[in-house]
Every structure is written in structure tokens, then in C-alpha cells.
């Protein structure tokens, strides 16, 4: 190997380590015995996983909601977003890809144009709409808002996926006597499983880490998600134990890391193919 080759490989490796370092540091801090620096090793900071109580001191432990409940909220949000976006995208994507929908081009253009709408544009309006229909300060309201923001991209991804499925099989099913709906349900949907799986994972991650919508649209801490707890602690970063924050962060990161490592190659192909259109 030439010197140049060695150098760039080295560079790549250094960058990899550099990129991983923040995560490694947080990991070490999470296990640290000292509150604001990395020293020693203890798992005490993770006590909240078992007890649900964030602050062990009974004088303060009631300020923050029970972590178990918060975890359930976060799961609810993530699963809700994932389920709804995946369901709606696999239906709308199919119709836009394979069905002679009147005004198809206009709808597709709209879908493209709508994706990536910045949150701030909708926040004020959402605040009032949710208040009006009684979904303010509920996780369902947040789920619906998040779904709307992620739906255009989801539809585009699924539509492109369906575009690449063979027509013969669909025609065969229709000639075999199945209507369009049965064909979609029994034949096309199973064939679209890889795309659906990828989208479901992407949306789970998207919902799991959601912050701003919860911060704005949820007020009582019984409806808090993990992002709110961590945000609250960041606000008190001067006085709170950083190693606790770090432990919470690692906890918050786990599902993302698992999903990510396990499906990394897949996500890149599907998500990326969707963005490029």
C-alpha cells in the first residue's frame, strides 16, 4: 500500500473514532462515580431503570414523574407514529403508484412539495387546532402532528417502492378474480414488506426522539416523554448530577442504537432511495 493510501485509511479511522467519541464519553460518564466527571465505575446512576424514580433523594424524587410511566409514554408516541405513518403510507403510496387516481400528478406534486415542512410553520396553528378538538396536552395530539409532518416522505418512499414491483403479478391477481383492495392486501402488501419494515423502523426512531412537539403541545408531566425529562435536567445542568443525565441519555439512546446497527445497510438503501425520489 502506498503512503497516500495508508494516510487516508488512517484519516478515516481517526474520523470514525472522533465521531464516536461523544457517545463513548457519555457512556463513560453514565457509569462514572463522580457527578460531573469521568471517574470510577458504578451502575448506580441507572437505578432509575429499576425504581422508576429519577432522583433517589426522597425529598426531590417527586418532582420528576416516574420514569416507567415516561418510558411508556415515549413508547406510545414512537409506536403510534410508526404505525400510523406506515399504515397510511402503504395505502396512499399504493394508490398513487398503481391506481388510476384522478388528479394523480397534482397529488404527487403536492406530496413532494409538502415533505420537509419546517415544524415552526405549523406549531402555532397546531396549538390552536389541538386545543379546539380537545387533543391539546395529549400524546395522541402529538402523534397526529408528528404523523402529518412525516407522512409526505413516507408516502413518497412507499410509492417509489411500489413502482418497482412487477405489474404482471398484480394483473394476475385481478384476473384471478380479486378486486383492487384484496389484491393490495393479499399480494402487493406482502411484497412490499421490506419497504414497510424500513419505514416502520425509520418512523419509530423519528417518534422516539421527538422533542419540540412534545415540549410545545404537552404541559402536564404525566404526559412527558423521555425527551422532556432530559430537557428538564439540561435546564438545571448547573446543579444536577451530570452522570445521571448521562445515564438517562444512554438509556434513551439504546433502542435507536440497536435498531440502527441491526438495520443500518437496509435503512440507508430505502431511506436514501426515498429522498432521491
Amino acid at each position, binding site marked *: 500500500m502506498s503512503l*497516500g493510501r495508508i494516510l*487516508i*485509511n488512517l484519516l*478515516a479511522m481517526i*474520523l*470514525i473514532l472522533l*465521531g*464516536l467519541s*461523544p*457517545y463513548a*464519553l457519555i457512556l463513560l460518564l453514565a457509569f462514572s462515580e463522580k457527578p460531573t466527571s469521568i471517574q470510577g465505575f458504578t451502575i448506580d446512576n441507572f437505578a432509575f431503570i429499576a425504581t422508576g424514580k429519577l432522583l433517589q433523594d426522597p425529598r426531590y424524587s417527586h418532582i420528576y414523574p416516574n420514569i416507567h410511566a415516561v418510558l411508556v409514554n415515549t413508547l406510545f408516541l414512537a409506536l403510534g407514529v410508526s404505525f400510523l405513518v406506515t399504515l397510511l403510507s402503504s*395505502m*396512499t403510496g*399504493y*394508490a398513487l*403508484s*398503481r*391506481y*388510476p*387516481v384522478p388528479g*394523480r*400528478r397534482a397529488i*404527487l*406534486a403536492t406530496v413532494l*412539495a409538502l415533505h*420537509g*415542512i*419546517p415544524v*415552526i*410553520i405549523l*406549531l*402555532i*396553528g397546531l*396549538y390552536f*387546532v389541538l386545543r379546539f378538538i380537545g387533543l391539546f396536552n395529549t400524546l395522541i395530539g402529538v402523534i*397526529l*402532528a408528528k*404523523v402529518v409532518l412525516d407522512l*409526505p416522505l413516507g408516502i413518497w418512499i412507499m410509492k417509489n417502492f411500489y413502482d418497482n414491483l412487477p*405489474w404482471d403479478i398484480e*394483473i394476475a391477481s385481478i384476473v384471478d378474480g380479486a*378486486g*383492487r*383492495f384484496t389484491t393490495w392486501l393479499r399480494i402487493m402488501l406482502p411484497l412490499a414488506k421490506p419497504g414497510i419494515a424500513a419505514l416502520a423502523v425509520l418512523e419509530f426512531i423519528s417518534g*422516539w*426522539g421527538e*422533542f*419540540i412537539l412534545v415540549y410545545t403541545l404537552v404541559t402536564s408531566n404525566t404526559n412527558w416523554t423521555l*425527551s422532556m425529562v432530559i*430537557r428538564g435536567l439540561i435546564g438545571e*445542568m448547573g446543579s444536577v448530577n*451530570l452522570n445521571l443525565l*448521562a445515564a438517562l*441519555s444512554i438509556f*434513551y439512546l439504546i433502542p435507536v442504537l440497536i435498531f*440502527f446497527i441491526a438495520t*443500518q*445497510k437496509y435503512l440507508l438503501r430505502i431511506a*436514501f432511495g426515498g429522498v*432521491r425520489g
Partner: protein
Amino acid sequence: MGETLPPLRDMLFILLFIGISTAVVLLFLLIPAVLTIFISTTNMDYSLKWQFIGLRNYQALLTDPLTIRFLTNTAIFTAGVLSFNVLVGLFLAILSTHVSELLGSTLRAVYLLPRVTPSVVLAFTMLWIFSPTESGVLNSLLRYIGIIKNPVAWTTDFPWQFLFLINGLVGCSLGMLIFTSAIKSIPPDYIVAARVDGASTLRIIAGIIVPMIRNHIGFVIAYQTLSLIASFEYILLTLDGGPGYYTTEVWALAAYHRAFSQYFIAADYGYAAAMVVILMLAAAILTITYWKIFRLGSGITEPKLEV
């Protein structure tokens, strides 16, 4: 094919498959957007009592001395993060395609992490690393090595650079992926021919690769500009517009604070909505421009079945 109304079954199918999505979008996207425009013409505040005041909010915006500051901040922010995104994204794409596939894809995966990391976690991590106090990671490290004596107030003295870094870490992954794919689809013949002609790798990168992906670069610049002018989440989570008086307060954050500030009583939905409407206009103009430039409408194929 220009026939009569589609049969009932057709309508039911479309209702189910397209109607539900449309309803959701209408209710939680269109209506809020329209509502925002409407509210911008009122003086609604925390009490939710309002009066129609026409364009007075916009007039106030024009005369408010802070407006210029917000615009400038937004411009600085957008330019800074965009540069980071494109340059780092390009760099990572080129590097990762010139090393082994394993190393390259690992590199890309690592720099995708910030994008999938929950924002609060990334914010906390960066705040801790760049903390102005002694216990900040960077400060302790640099003091340990002996480079500095006293802790550096990273986030206070270099707020913009800090914001560029944290937003850039998240944002560069998009360019990285797009450029990687673009580079990989350059026909190898070009590169081989250049090598045979004796060109060095650097020359090849500058002279062949970058020019050949310039459409992709243009696309990333356009796309990310649009999202950056409205981006504020990480600023909110870390510096919250500071340090001090609106140092890093961008337009979107200012609007957010105006509507949802910590001091509930200070909420001025009308004014905030006006700020948001300006943003909507900017976004709309940019979107239409990009649509024309990139001809995004082409390439939509017709379905084969007509039933």
C-alpha cells in the same frame, strides 16, 4: 379516459386509500397553516381574546429594531451551517468512497448517528463537552494536556461556531449520503481515463468528481437552505438564543419565543404568527424556485392498469 363518474367501488377505494391521508393532512397541516395566517392579522395573546387588527403586526415587524437582528442571525446561521453541511458532507463522501468499502460504510454510519440521536441527547452531550466550566470535557482535556490554563468559555465566546458544529453534525449526513451515491454512480471510465493520463487523485477529485456531481451539490444546497432558515430546535435546546441578549436568536426561534415563551403571560400569538407567515412566504418562494430549477415534476409515470 374522460368518462363518466367512476363507479362506487372506485370512489370507496380512493376514499380509503387517499382520503384518510388527505383528511389528516387537511386537519393538521392545511388548517393550522391557514389559521396561522389568520391569527397574524389579530392581536391574540395569552388570554386568547382577540381582535382583528389587519396588517398592524407586519407593520410592527418592519419597524421593530430587533427584526434586523433576527434576519441577520438567521442569515449567519444558515450560511454557517450550510457551509459545514456541504463541505463536511462532501469531504466525508469523497473520503468514504476512496477507502475500503468496510471502512467507508462504517465512516458513513458513524456520521449518520447524530441524525438519529434524540435531539436532547445530542444537545446535552455537546453542552457537556463544550461546557464553559472546568468540568467540561474539552476544558478538562486541554488543561490536562497543558494547552490551556483556564477554562475556555466555548459556548459563551464562540456561540456561532458551536451552533454550526452541532447543527452541522446532524445536517452533514444528508449531503454525505447523496454525494456518496452520486460519486458511486460516476462511470468508472472517466476516472480510469484520467489515471491513465497521469492525473493525481486530488486532481481527479477536483477536476472530475466534484464537477460531475455539481447538480447534486446544488440540490443539497437548495434543499438544506430551505430547512435551515426555519431551523431552531438545537438553538433552543443549547443556547436558547443567547448568550446574552438575542445573540443567536434566529427568526424561527424568535417566533417560537413570542408564542410559547416560558413566561406564559408574554405570549403574543398575533405577532408570532406574523413572523411565521413571513417564513412561510420565504419557504414558498424558495420551493417554487427549486421546483422550476430542478424540474421535480418530471419522471412521474402512469400506472399500467386502467381499472
